[in-house]
């Protein structure tokens, strides 16, 4: 039994030996005389160019997205609407980019209705799914009384979105309406709360609403100030108005 007992002195000695190994190394062995680094170089995001309007959505699609996003997040006393926050523009840039193309996704068949735990199962990447779904919804609504979604009354729009989310709208074999509604709602929330550099959350309005400090790293001065309001306004990756002298 005693053979596995290690006395204190031996253990300390072992520890000292273990610690001695990295000490004997030179900087060259430890870091190869440097870690990867180059001047002017960093992993910065590509800011959305807000001068252009829609680059992916056509006029019909844009009208649908604007109307639907406005019903998902209407303006109220706590904060701006999805439209005011620039959400449709954010989604347009999402669809125009690698996310919309499913550039990093496995996009081969078989395709089918998702069991719910399978994740994304549409036969198109998100951009194509949006196009097909909005077209199918237009056709579906056109069959019934001809009024496109964005021209309908708010109550009517809400009723349709509710049906869509409940899987009660048949958009044909290829388009899973419920799955697309889930995707749209997800993208609307992303646009509302993401960094303004990507086109949504205009003027940091969503972050102001929830009191999120944004892309500020150092909170040591405030982290122990229990019960006191956080004193600084939110900041985006691209800054905040106080960074410029015009403000």
């Amino acid at each position, binding site marked *: 039994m005693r053979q596995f007992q290690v006395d204190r002195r031996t253990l300390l000695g072992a520890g000292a030996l273990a*610690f001695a190994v990295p000490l004997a190394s*030179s*900087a060259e062995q430890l870091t190869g005389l440097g870690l990867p680094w180059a*001047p*002017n170089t*960093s*992993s910065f995001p590509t800011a959305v160019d807000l001068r252009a309007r829609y680059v992916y959505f056509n006029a019909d699609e844009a009208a649908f997205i604007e109307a639907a996003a406005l019903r998902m997040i209407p303006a109220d006393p706590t904060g701006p609407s999805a439209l005011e926050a620039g959400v449709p523009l954010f989604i347009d840039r999402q669809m125009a980019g690698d996310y919309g193309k499913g550039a990093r996704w496995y996009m081969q068949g078989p395709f089918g209705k998702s069991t719910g735990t399978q994740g994304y199962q549409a036969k198109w990447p998100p951009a194509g799914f949006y196009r097909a779904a909005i077209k199918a919804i237009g056709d579906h609504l056109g069959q019934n009384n001809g009024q496109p979604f964005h021209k309908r009354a708010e109550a009517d729009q809400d009723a349709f979105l509710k049906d869509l989310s409940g899987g009660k709208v048949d958009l044909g074999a290829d388009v899973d309406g419920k799955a697309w509604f889930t995707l749209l709602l997800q993208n609307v929330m992303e646009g509302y709360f993401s960094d303004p550099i990507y086109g949504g959350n205009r003027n940091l309005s969503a972050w102001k609403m929830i009191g999120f400090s944004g892309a500020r790293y150092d909170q040591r001065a405030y982290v122990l100030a229990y019960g006191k309001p956080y004193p600084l306004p939110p900041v985006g990756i691209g800054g905040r108005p*106080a960074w410029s*002298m015009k403000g």
Partner: protein
Amino acid sequence: MRLRARAAAAVLAAGVALLLAARQAPVFAEVVAPAAPVAPATAKATPAVPESPQVAQGRYLAVVGDCEGCHDRPGGAPYAGGLPLATPFGTIYSVNLTQDRETGLGAWSADDFWNAMHNGVRRDGAKLYPAFPYPYFTHITRAESDALYAYFRTLPAVSYRPPANKLPFPLNLRFMVGFWNALNFKPDNAPTTGPNPGQHIVEGLGHCGACHTPKTFLGGDKNGHALEGGKLDNWLAPALNSDQRRGLGAWSTADVAEYLKTGRNARANASASMADVIRYSTSQMADADLAAVGDYLRGHPTHAAAVGDVRVDPKVMQAGQAIYVDECATCHAADGKAQPGYFPPLPGAAVTQSTNPTNVIRFILSGTQTVATDAKPTPLSMPSFGWKLDDAQVAAVATYVRNSWGNVAPPVSPSDVAKLRRKVGKPIQKPSAKV
């Protein structure tokens, strides 16, 4: 029984050691490394045969002179030359110092070598360009020159001829250097190590003034302004003198020695061109010599005018503070005190208060990386902000750090930033960031 326990402990120790070695535990090494024996960062194979005291002295003097800083090219054999030196007048390639008879110093005598070091004259009688710092090396003694010569005699011959210099007419005519010498160079007629070893290193082999002394339009040292700070390659080599704000006046001798040995101290981190000087030269110098250098530099008189009244637009300071709190405070802390020894404090720092704001602008635009030494093997880096801050914003935050926490320095203008930005180049996006 006891034996087995020891064996078990040894296995445990080996396991832990392997684990630590595999992870390279940089943070740990960071904390305790100074206690470890320091091997040269560019450790050459120690000679199998013990070398003579003269060769050993020459080997050390080659380190003090940072010969490899210029005479090694990336991928080339040590001392084989070929590194392009971009001078304001054209590109000059360092020569081969190995013992090859055709392309190196193999055919040189000790007298030839002394003539080059002391008078700036090549073996064939042609004048060397002052990119080779003979105006400083002229202060070394004949014994030191002979020791260096003896060490270079031990370098294996490497046949390598550096590319031809790219100098415009008439600078490509070597006799033109004669005129330059007449104006800028005086051979030291009685070189001596003197009573002040720090001065002997700084003014001689160390050739600190090659970068840290302001230059005339001819590229010679400005008379009477030794070590007051020079420009080089779009950097400022800061003042090395007793100036409290812009020099080493607030540093102790130990501060200077620690900086030169490890690449950092509680006041500053070394990067850019100084990184190579520390890597090849000062980190391998004897502690006593570094202390002597520190003693000399921090007592070196300054002639720079005191900082006068500085007026800063409060709106600029407000914008600068907003940027500082959001971006810089992460490492440098809201009060600027940062993490001494890791992230350099800004209050009282020469780099923030130098009259010429080049370095503070460039650090913000391009970022920078601290040198890795055996004592401090983890090179800390500052990210670049050139991609997110425009010229006015860089100017505002630079002005803010130059005039906060007791700092005083002239404000930085957006046009200063624009000018430097054109020289240091555009932001580069890492491929991994493109989605």
